[in-house]
């Protein structure tokens, strides 16, 4: 995929199948003009989350407009925060972790991102799901 001006989306789940499945839904429903990556499962292929894999997913979905991360359970959030902190400093402030349900949040965030919205708007759109 050529470098996109749109916000990128990263999906982090304890399950590789959930992460990949959610990414599939985003691709089918939103198309491929949003940089998208999924990180699911631990380094051994079991259930869990893996900081190195999350960092790689952020790299893959990187856009100068920033990256929005959708997570499932607590460990995914903690490991995503850790991954963000270990990214180069100039990228850190352009990465957000959305407080939103992972599947709906990913689809909504990607839909918003595909229209060229800013990172803050993408995040707000995903997080509206929590107050809806």
């Amino acid at each position, binding site marked *: 995929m050529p470098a996109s001006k749109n916000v990128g989306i990263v999906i982090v789940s304890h399950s590789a199948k959930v992460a990949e499945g959610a990414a599939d839904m985003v691709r089918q429903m939103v198309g491929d003009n949003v940089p998208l990556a999924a990180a699911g499962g631990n380094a051994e292929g079991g*259930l*869990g989350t893996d*900081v190195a894999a999350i960092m790689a997913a952020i790299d893959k979905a990187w856009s100068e407009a920033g990256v929005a991360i959708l997570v499932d359970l*607590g460990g995914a959030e*903690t490991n995503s*925060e850790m991954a963000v902190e*270990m990214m180069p400093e100039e990228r850190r402030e352009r990465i957000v972790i959305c407080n939103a349900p992972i599947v709906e949040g990913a689809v909504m965030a990607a839909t918003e991102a595909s229209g060229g919205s800013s990172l803050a708007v993408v995040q707000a759109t995903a997080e509206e799901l929590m107050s809806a």
Partner: protein
Amino acid sequence: MDDALKKTLIEAMTGAIVTHADELTALDQAIGDGDHGLNMKRGFEAVLAEMDLITAKPLPDALKAIGTTLVMKVGGASGPLYGTLFMTLGKELPPEPTIADLARALAAAIEAVKARGKSDLGQKTMLDVLAPLQAALAHGGADLTKRLPEVVRFAAEATVPLKAIRGRASFLGERSIGHMDPGARSSALLATAICNAIGA
């Protein structure tokens, strides 16, 4: 701190986690997702595998390297939590720390772990062992390496009647009561291993 002592401490911590991996997993099966022993074992075995590289560094950098390795290898929420603990100790400690330095650095590390886990004391986590350990270090006195293992053992046991507020165990609510927190137990094991290695 010389390289030999750093090696001894890494071997002691890894040994304690490997020996008790099944016990930690059993504790985690009761109230969590049942992988704490396996995760911690994987993390510390990775530290052991890089021991020569790590121990060649001055203590602050060695601690940061241990923290980074744990973050990358442990998986699950305990990776960032223990990673944050060791990285902060590395940031706060001088190359040749005194007990007072340790107490001050551990206080900073506890704050960092609180922020990372969005947790506080009394919520049935590793913090409930680290805080009494820090208090005992700050209080000081003779025979610390003999007294601290008792302090952390009691502290870990004191998590049994608590209700979990953070982490996977919090999903169980009242049902988390009556089980020792696996993170409290692993923290107690690590502290005890360090005391035994230094006191031996």
